[in-house]
């Protein structure tokens, strides 16, 4: 059974969520993580929307965390990557790796 694969931005979100872990992965932290590592400007709204899609597909699960003072006393929605999500990440990265094997990027350019 082949796992569903992820779109590029979804993959970034999933990887960030895996890195941050279930206690600190949520919209703002994920957006910040991607921004700091890739240097690209990440719109919070896109992360929010992507997380909704991923949750619908069953790749992540979410729950409200504890209220935090820096959030004006409001709780974040913490996300946990599900085993199905991990499988999807593997499927996607494997596919990329497979496609890149033997490829000499310099020549393409």
């Amino acid at each position, binding site marked *: 059974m082949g796992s569903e694969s992820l779109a590029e931005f979804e993959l970034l979100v999933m990887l960030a969520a895996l890195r941050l872990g279930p206690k600190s992965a949520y919209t703002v932290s994920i*957006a910040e993580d991607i921004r700091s590592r890739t240097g690209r400007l990440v719109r919070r709204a896109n992360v929010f929307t992507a997380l909704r899609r991923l949750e619908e597909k069953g790749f992540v699960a979410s729950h409200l965390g504890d209220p935090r003072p820096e959030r004006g006393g409001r709780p974040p929605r913490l996300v946990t990557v599900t085993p199905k999500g991990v499988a999807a990440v593997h499927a996607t990265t494997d596919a990329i790796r497979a496609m890149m094997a033997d490829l000499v990027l310099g020549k393409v350019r």
Partner: protein
Amino acid sequence: LSAPRWTRALLRRLARPDEIEEVLGDLEEAHRTSVARRGRLIASALTAIETLDMAAALLRERRRSPRTLPVVSWLDLKLGLRMLVKHPALSLVSALGMTLAVAIGTSAFGAIHAITASRLPLDEGERIVTIQNTGWGGLGQERATHLHDLPLWRSAMRTIQGFGAYRIVTRNLLTEDGDVTTARVVEMTASGFDIARVPPLLGRTLIEADERAGAADVTVIGYGVWQDRFGGATDVLGRTLRIGSTPHTVVGVMPQGFAFPINNRVWAPLRLNPLDHRRGEAPAIDVFARVAPGYSLGDVQVELTTLGARLAAAYPDTQEEMQPRVYPYTQELIWGPTAWFLRLGQVLASMLLVVIAINVAVLVYARTATRSDEIVVRSALGASRARVAAQLFAEAFVLSSLAAAAGLFVARWGLEWIAMMAVWPMGEQVPFWWDFSLTPAAAAYSFGLAVLAAVIIGVVPALGMTGRRLRAGLQNVASRAAAPRLGRTWTTLIVAQVAFAVAVLPVGLNAVGSFFAGGPRPTNLTLDGFLSARLDFEEDDRPAAADRTDMIQARQATLSAVAQRLEAEPEVSRVLLMEVSPWGDPDLRFELEGREPPAGESFGALESAGTGTLVGTSRVGPEFFEALGVPLVTGRYFTRADVAAASDVVVVNHVFVEHALAGVSPLGRRIRFGTSGNPEPGTEEAVWYTIVGVVEDHWGGFTARPEAKAFLPMKPGGPLPRYLAVELRGDPAPFIRRVLEVASGVDPKLQVTRLVPLADVYRDGEGPLRVIALTLAALALSVLLLAVAGLYALMSFTVVRRRREIGIRAALGGTSYAVLRPVLARALVQLAVGVAAGLALAALTDRALGGEMLSGRGAVLLPMVAALMTAVGVAAAWGPARRGLNVQPTEALRAD
């Protein structure tokens, strides 16, 4: 340090309830980080951009999320059932009100559906159509052109497979054993049987040869006639049935249930030759046809329109304004305005449920409002607005579907009852395809009503409570600062309802009273022992005008002969001939000699006999007064000499003298009358009649009070008597057959119908009246119920709202009176205002209608209803108020 207020407000508005915390938290965190990094000004700008971006995402998300209707779970239904049990009084009142509404609505739907949508139970019955000329003339005039148009239609139309025509005539049926009845005989073309596609049970149907002039007189009879009149004899074919004065040979028997074209049991060939009549003056016939395969009604109409234009050009005198139209066969009788009227009735009947459902919604809202905390908490826990609405819908649907089921059950009887009271008495005029059983369509309709009611009761308040108020509510859950309020509109509604109940209830009670008193009021006439009958003569196709006087004389002779023969019977003590029944006399305008005719008054509907310009007139024989027990006050009755000499004398009653002559002795005064065709007495050469006697008043039937009457002697050459009354020494019932035998023995064309005891004649029209009376009563009852429930709900609501106040007052040692007074006061004021307004409305309406509305019982009914309403209202308010007293102070205060 916080994000700008507008950004929070915007996102709060757009986010789903379960997302709000997260989205606002994200906004806040991102904004604060941004402020720390880039300073306040830039951060605000960035946050603004991000907020708009986020808002767009939320909107997209919202549109994307499939708008599936939230599923109603079994748990919701169970909860709904539990709510019903928990509030039994509320449930019962709501359910009763809605049951009534559903019953009335579904009965109306069923009846209208039976009339408008019943299918013709024949093979491909939907392809049978009626073709009719329509125009500006009266219907009879239009149908008088059919006989001449039919041959052209028949030869020219490709869209029609076969044409048929018929006319219905009333005839006496006489079997070989001398048994007479009157029936509506249909004279139909032989093709009618082919179009109906029903083979005979015995023998044959009519054939074209039967239609030729000079052919043998044959008839086809229905199953019922075969069974009843021929005892189901197998050798019925070839036997004789006399139709009117002509013996017909029975050639066929149709199977049970066949009654085409309207509701007929006896068929004779239609023998009308267009050559015998001038165009436009032929006897009226109805035309029907079967549409050829592959063509629609529209195709037929196109062809007809072309033909119509050709005919109009050829015969401008008769056809210029005529337009042939095709109708579905079953809708011939209910086209155009009638159909609209019926549909309007349907809408109104359905509106009743809407009104009642809104009332119930008000009641339930009082309950829902007390559950606002629950709803707020549910929403906070992530229940969407739709989910909350679905839950309340389910609860309401439990109630409304129970009511609908009960209503459907009642409607089944209601329909049968409507049919029995108002439809079947029309006998053979009722089309055979009308089906008054409860159809699946009616069941679906009542289910639809249940859903509609549940939406009104459940969904509308749910949306109201989960809207903008929700957030306010969320804050209040903790503080309990504000309780829900019952709007001013609803308070007004309840007052209006009480007023309406008080205004309508007397009418309903009066209707119920009349109904249980056995319909119309009893009469003071002596009617026992009388058998009455209606007299008609078989109409010839066209009596020449010159023969008219002869004809009337001949008919009068016939009637005299019948009367004489009946009087000769040993059981008969007296025979009366009357122009009209004692209750059917037409009201005519009159003029007293030497007094200005009343001028400038309209011949309006509100003018009733005895008001000074109208008087009920009828021609009677000299025996009338004594026989029916109408005592003489002064002067004299008619004599046989008056009748023989055609004297211009008149006997009036007491009411007439009171009203028209203000009690002055009327003897010798002269009076003349208008006619029903020309109501003004002075405009034609009306005869002056001399008043020779005054009799006591009589009443009965549907008139509440005795009316002004003038009795004229029957005169030779005058109007023919239409009513026969035979006084018998014994039981009238067994004598019915003898009356028929005597009448048909004298003249087979004399039709004697409605042979019933005279006492029953004044019950004419009772059936529809009962339908109206019971419907009114049911409506009045539901209005009363809802008004009471409204008061109850109002009180409950007030008590809930003032729970704390009541608790504190009670804790501080207030007496029950002191505690309850302010609570009760509001309800009582509303009750008083409602009752007063209702009374005024009822009294004014009754007066405007001249006391007819309450049959003169207003003085009793109005105070009774006011007292009842007050008592019931106080009781309704008292229950919740008492419950308020039982509020434990500690409990009320603990809520804080």
